[in-house]
C-alpha cells in the first residue's frame, strides 16, 4: 500500500470520527418515551428512596421511562447553569428553593405547568413557585430549622428543657450554664451565615430589605442586636472559627458526640442523629420580639425546551404529590412532602425520634420570608456571610461589618 493512500485513509478516518460527533440520535416512535430527571435531593442517602418512587411511576405509566441523574448538592447549581447555557437541560430538574426559581422563571427556562391540581399542595409553598398566577414549578418537599437539644446535658446541668415560649434571653442563660469549656462541652451552636441572619432579623422585629426591596434595611439598632445574637455566641457558648466552627459537619458531629447542648439546624439531620447515643429532642427556635422560622423548600420544574413536556409534567406531579412519594418520604424521614392533606402528614408525628415532631409543623406556621433579589442573590448572600464572619472573628466590630455589608448590598441592588 502506498503512502498517499495511507494518508488519505487516515484523513478520512479522522473526518469520520469528527462527523459522528455531530450526528444526532434518531427519535424513536411508538415505543416508551424516555424523559431525563436531574436531581440533587436524593443525593447522600436517599437514592434508593427515589428509585422506589421512579419504579412506582414507571409501573403506573408503562409508556414513560425516567432516566435519573443524581448530583451532589454543592455542584448541582453549577451543573444546571451549564446545562441551561448549553441548551441541554434535563426534561425535569430540581430547583433549589424559591430564590433559585425566581431567576430561572424570569429567564424563561421553565415551561408553564397547566392543569395542576392545586388543592393537593400546601398553598403557601405552591404559590412560591408561581409567577403572575401561572405555575412554573411544583414544591417537592419542605423542611425547617429547629432547636435541637441534648436532654442528658440539660439534666446534668439542672437546666429546664427549651419550650416554645423561650426567647433569646432564655437561650443565652441556659447556654451559659451548659457550657463547660474544661470538659469540652459547649452550650450552643448557631451558624453565622446569611441564612440565619435574615431569619433572626425577623425574630427581632427587623427586616433584611426595605418594603420595596430596593435597599438594605438591616443596619438599624434592631439589626445590630440580631447580628450580635449570632456573633457573640462565638467563644463564649459556641466554639470559635479557630476551633473548627463553620466547617462541614462540625456542629452535627459535636452534637452527636454529646459535646453540644443546643444546636440550630434543619430537620434534614434527623436520620443522621437516629443512632446518636444521647437523648435528644427538638423545640421551635426561640424568637426575640416574635417567633419566625426559616423554611426551605425544593421545587421541580419542566424545561421549556423539553421534547416531551406532557410526560415530563406527569413525572413532576408524581414526584411532588403522589401517595407513593408521600409514604416513602414519611417512612424514611426524607424531609416533608409539600402536600395539604393534614391526615397524611399526621403519621409523621409518631415515626420515632425526636418525640416533639409537632415542633416541625409549628415552626412552619411562622415563616421568615427569605429575601429574593434575582441574579445577584449569591453575591448578596456571600457579602452578608463574609462580613458577619469578620465580626465573629473580631476583625471588625458588628457596626463596621453591617456598614460594609449595607454598602455592598445597596450596590448590588442598584444594579
Amino acid at each position, binding site marked *: 500500500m*502506498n*503512502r*498517499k493512500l495511507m*494518508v488519505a485513509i*487516515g*484523513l478520512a478516518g*479522522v473526518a469520520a470520527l*469528527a462527523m459522528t460527533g455531530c450526528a444526532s440520535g434518531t427519535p424513536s416512535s411508538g415505543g416508551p418515551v424516555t424523559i431525563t430527571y436531574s436531581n440533587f435531593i436524593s443525593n447522600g442517602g436517599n437514592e434508593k428512596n427515589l428509585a422506589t418512587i421512579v419504579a412506582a411511576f414507571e409501573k403506573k405509566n408503562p409508556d414513560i421511562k425516567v432516566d435519573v441523574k443524581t448530583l451532589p448538592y454543592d455542584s448541582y*447549581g*453549577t451543573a444546571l*447553569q*451549564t446545562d*441551561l*447555557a448549553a441548551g441541554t437541560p434535563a426534561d425535569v430538574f430540581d430547583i433549589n428553593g424559591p430564590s433559585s426559581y425566581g*431567576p*430561572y422563571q*424570569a*429567564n*424563561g*427556562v421553565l415551561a408553564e405547568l397547566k392543569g395542576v391540581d392545586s388543592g393537593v399542595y400546601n398553598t403557601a409553598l405552591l404559590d412560591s413557585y408561581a409567577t403572575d398566577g401561572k405555575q412554573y414549578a411544583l414544591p417537592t418537599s419542605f423542611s425547617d430549622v429547629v432547636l435541637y437539644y441534648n436532654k442528658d446535658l440539660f439534666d446534668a446541668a439542672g437546666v429546664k428543657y427549651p419550650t416554645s415560649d423561650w426567647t433569646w434571653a432564655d437561650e443565652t442563660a441556659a447556654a451559659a450554664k451548659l457550657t463547660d469549656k474544661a470538659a469540652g462541652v459547649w452550650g450552643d451552636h448557631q451558624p453565622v451565615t446569611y441564612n440565619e441572619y435574615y431569619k433572626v432579623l425577623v425574630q427581632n422585629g427587623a427586616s433584611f430589605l426595605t418594603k420595596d426591596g430596593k435597599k438594605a434595611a438591616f443596619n438599624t439598632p434592631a439589626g445590630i442586636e440580631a447580628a450580635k445574637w449570632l456573633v457573640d455566641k462565638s467563644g463564649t457558648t459556641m466554639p*470559635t*472559627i*479557630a*476551633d*473548627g466552627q463553620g466547617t462541614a459537619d462540625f456542629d452535627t458531629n459535636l452534637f452527636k458526640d454529646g459535646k453540644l447542648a443546643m444546636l440550630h439546624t434543619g430537620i434534614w439531620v434527623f436520620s443522621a442523629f437516629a443512632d446518636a447515643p444521647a437523648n435528644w429532642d427538638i423545640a421551635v427556635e426561640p424568637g426575640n420580639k416574635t417567633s419566625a422560622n426559616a423554611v426551605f423548600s425544593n421545587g421541580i420544574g419542566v424545561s421549556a425546551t423539553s421534547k416531551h413536556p406532557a410526560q415530563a409534567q406527569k413525572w413532576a406531579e408524581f414526584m411532588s404529590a403522589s401517595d407513593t412519594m408521600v409514604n416513602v418520604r414519611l417512612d424514611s424521614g426524607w424531609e416533608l412532602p409539600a402536600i395539604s392533606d393534614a391526615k397524611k402528614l399526621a403519621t409523621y408525628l409518631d415515626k420515632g425520634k425526636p418525640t416533639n415532631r409537632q415542633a416541625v409543623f409549628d415552626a412552619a406556621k411562622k415563616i421568615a420570608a427569605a429575601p429574593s433579589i434575582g*441574579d*445577584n442573590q*449569591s*453575591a448578596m448572600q*456571600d457579602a452578608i456571610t*463574609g*462580613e458577619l*464572619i*469578620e465580626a465573629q*472573628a473580631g*476583625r471588625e466590630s458588628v457596626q463596621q461589618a453591617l456598614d460594609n455589608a449595607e454598602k455592598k448590598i445597596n450596590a448590588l441592588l442598584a444594579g
Partner: protein
Amino acid sequence: MSVSNAQTSLVDRAPQFVHSKPVRDGRTRNNKVRYALTVLAFLLPSAVPLLLFVLGPMVAAAWVSLNQWNLLAPMKWVGLGNYAKLLGDPITGDVFLHTVYYIVGYLPLVYIGGLALALALNTALKGRSFLRGIYFLPVVTSWIVVALVWRWLLSPSNGIVNSALAFFGIHGPGWWTDPHWAMPSIIIASAWKDLGFIMVILLAGLQAIPSDMYDAAKVDGAGWWRRLFSVTLPLLSPSSFFVLVISLINGFQVFDQVYAMTGGGPNGASEVVVQQIYDLTFRYGRAGEASALSWMLFVVVLAVTVIQIRGQKRWVTYA
C-alpha cells in the same frame, strides 16, 4: 513517475520547501500539496483538540466578553462595557494583587526548595531513587486530596502545625481562617506539592552538566559554593528558565488549591483571578465579565512570557 519515486521525493525533498523558493512547475506544485497534506495528517491529532478545546473556546470567550450574559437569557451586546466595568471595579485590582502575592511567595520557595532537593539527590546518596519517588508523589496526587490534608495540618486549634508550634511556646496563627494567613497557607501547600516537579526538571538539568566542568573547577581551586555559582547555576540556566516560565504561567492560573482550601475567603482575602472568573460565571451569573477577565488575564500572561523570552539572552546559557 513511479510510485517509489514519489515516495522518495516526498521524504527527501520536502524540507527544501521550507528553505528555498519553490520551483514553479506542475510536478513540484503537486508535491507541495502532497507534502502539506502529510504535514496536516501528522498535525491533526494535536491540532484538532487544540482547535476544539483551546482556540475555539478562546474565540467564543472573546465574543461572550462583549456581551452581558447570565447563562440563562440570550446575550445582550455591551461592546467593551464589561472591560470598562472590570477596570473600574476595585475587586479586579484585588484579585490580580492576590495572584501576584501568590506568585511572589510561591516561586522562590518552590525554586530554592526544588534546587536544594535536586542537588541533594544528585549525589551518590543511598536510596536516592526511593527518595526521588517520594518527593514526586505529591505531584501526581489530586489537588483536592492535598488541599484537604493541608487544611487539617494547618487547622488553627487541632492541626499538627500549630500543636508543634505550641510545643515551642509559639502561638500559631489562624492559617486559612485568617485573612492575613490564608494566602501564605495556600503558598505553603502549593510549594510542597510542586516541589517534586521542579526537582525532577532541575535534576535532569544537573545531570546534563558534564563532570569535567567540575573537575576543571576543582583543579582551579573552586570550593563547593564557588562551583555552585560559577558552574552549576549558569549551566542549569536553561532548566531554570523553563521552570520560571512554566511556574509563572501556572501561577497566574492558580485555582484548584484556592478553590479547595479557602474558596477565595475569608471574606475575599485569597480571591485570585481564576477563582473570580469561576465565581462570576457560575455563582453570580456574570459570564460576560468573567470572559473579559479571562482575556485580561491572557494578555497579562502573554506579556509576562514575552518579556521573559526576550530577557533570556541576558542570563540563560545554552552550552
